[in-house]
């Protein structure tokens, strides 16, 4: 009984002293890395298509397979944003403020705006998709872009997968004349392709996991100098052409519809190639 009590006391002392230690360390570096000294940081997801700007319906793009296509919808989730300094300090944005739905047709959604401690950041990390923890949370914690009612139906842009509870991480639709009018293509004759990539690993039974962690080194194109009086913006180009032309390149005619299937795993890998740091505005 006594011994137990002593161990507990020791543990308490240890925790307390660790807390003091880390507190004093933070103060030493003031006004640097302190979690109570937050400043704005934006990450801009600027969609492009290879060498051309992103636009819906109108322009015709051509993929590596030589297929011409247009884009009607592009939406994807960015979450769990993390930034690191050159000396290895890392700050993870609070969970409740770390889910963003980027919508290609709504330019106002291209910024993921977060608050991080004042510091110079050399590395950015984020998740493409909605992590498994959030994907299995109770209904009352699914707010904003994670609300299953958000965006309406799948046709309208909803990202919630009801039948296989979870979220579509990356939704990309458009048209291409190469798509057949039969069941292997688009039987409605609209020549539509649909890529709905999701799968967080499964609730209780394991299944495909298409969550991707993207890490970007900011050294080359410009570190983010986050200060209260400034507005630092990490400007990323997101090259949608990589969906088709990435490592697991494929043809629209062969795979015009990919949703929850094994084939989606290869496409999800391509998605990691989309993100390129162009510059940082400080």
């Amino acid at each position: 009984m006594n011994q137990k009590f002593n161990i507990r006391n020791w543990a308490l002392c240890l925790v307390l002293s660790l807390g003091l230690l880390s507190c004093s360390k933070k103060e030493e570096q003031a006004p640097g890395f302190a979690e109570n000294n937050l400043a704005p940081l934006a990450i801009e997801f600027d969609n492009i298509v290879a060498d051309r700007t992103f636009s819906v319906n109108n322009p015709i793009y051509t993929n590596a397979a030589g297929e011409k296509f247009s884009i009607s919808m592009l939406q994807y989730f960015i979450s769990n944003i993390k930034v690191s300094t050159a000396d290895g300090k890392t700050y993870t944005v609070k969970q409740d403020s770390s889910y963003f739905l980027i919508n290609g047709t709504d330019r106002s959604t291209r910024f993921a705006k977060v608050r991080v401690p004042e510091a110079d950041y050399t590395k950015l990390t984020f998740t493409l998709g909605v992590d498994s923890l959030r994907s299995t949370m109770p209904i009352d914690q699914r707010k904003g872009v994670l609300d299953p009612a958000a965006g309406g139906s799948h046709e309208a842009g909803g990202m919630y997968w009801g039948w296989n509870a979870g979220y579509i991480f990356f939704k990309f639709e458009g048209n291409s004349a190469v798509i057949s009018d039969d069941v292997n293509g688009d039987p409605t004759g609209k020549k539509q392709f649909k890529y709905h990539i999701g799968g967080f690993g499964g609730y209780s039974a394991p299944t495909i996991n298409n969550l991707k962690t993207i890490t970007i080194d900011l050294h080359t194109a410009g570190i983010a100098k986050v200060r209260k009086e400034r507005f630092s913006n990490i400007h990323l180009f997101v090259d949608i052409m990589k969906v088709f032309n990435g490592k697991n390149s494929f043809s629209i005619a062969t795979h015009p519809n990919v949703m929850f299937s094994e084939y989606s795993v290869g496409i999800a890998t391509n998605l990691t190639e989309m993100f390129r740091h162009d510059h940082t505005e400080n």
Partner: protein
Amino acid sequence: MVMGLLGLFILACKKDKPLPEQIITFLGFVKPVNFPDPVYNFANNKPTKAGVELGRALFYEPRLSRNNTISCGSCHIQSSAFTQHGHDVSHGIDDRLGTRNSPPIMNLAWNKAFMWGGGVYDLDLQPIVPITTHEEMDEKLDNVMNKLKQLPKYTSMFKAAFGSEEINTSRFMKALSQFMLLCISSNSKYDKVMRKEGGQTFSPAEQEGYVLFKNKCASCHSEPLFTDGSFRNNGLAPSAINDLGLYTATLQETDRYKFKVPSLRNLQYTAPYMHDGRFLSLSGVLDHYRSEVQATANLDPLLQKESRRGLALSEDEKTKLLAFLSTLNDEEFIKNPLLAEQ
């Protein structure tokens, strides 16, 4: 402690007074004494009188469908133990047909997974599926809530249930769950025999059927819920649409042709049977297990013992088994006025 939360609607009827003066005491969710602890997280959504009443109104609300024609109660009819009796597959909006048999809204507090083929593991997320499915209600959640917001009835009911008039996804789903959680079937003859209520006993045929049940059926249809909640391939020949069951949600080869083990409660009211309603009678179901089990991928090992496929069952045993199964019918459940459309 958990048991302390328990309670159901208690209907105290004073015999000398007319029906409208019934005294109804709401006790919340009451775990039947012969049932295990529920798996639903009641800490996050405790049924209240106002919440259950709202959930019931929503359950019978046709505005949940695109053209306001189909409610949850359309395919989950109380007199059919909350199934769509007589329909092999669900019959939804614009006379569209689904691909699976409408399952019962019954004892869901003990369910770990929903739908015949899995994919949904939280009751609070389940209603999204029928509401948005093309063949069922074909509606959008935000549209449903916009329609409800137009009706003073709902703004006041949401206020009573959740403290303010706000209608949002979380409140909408939680209210539906509160009602469905109280759809408890636990007053069949079997339950009364088990609880030794009113000196109820099995007849000799029922008792012999019970022994047969324990030997041949109980490993999957375990008491007292009469399902172990698992997904299994019971050897049905693949349907015309080749429904792969659980595989569709997990993409695991070992899940091909596995479907959720259904409860055996209330079978008298819930024909036809199986995930696609292919058997019109229980006799047909038992004949399947006797002589029609197919050796498809992932056939449950319990149906493939030694060289025999299926279950050995004589005609006499079949009769006795059917006698036992009839003790699982719960008339109080299908007639409970508090679960009915008001």
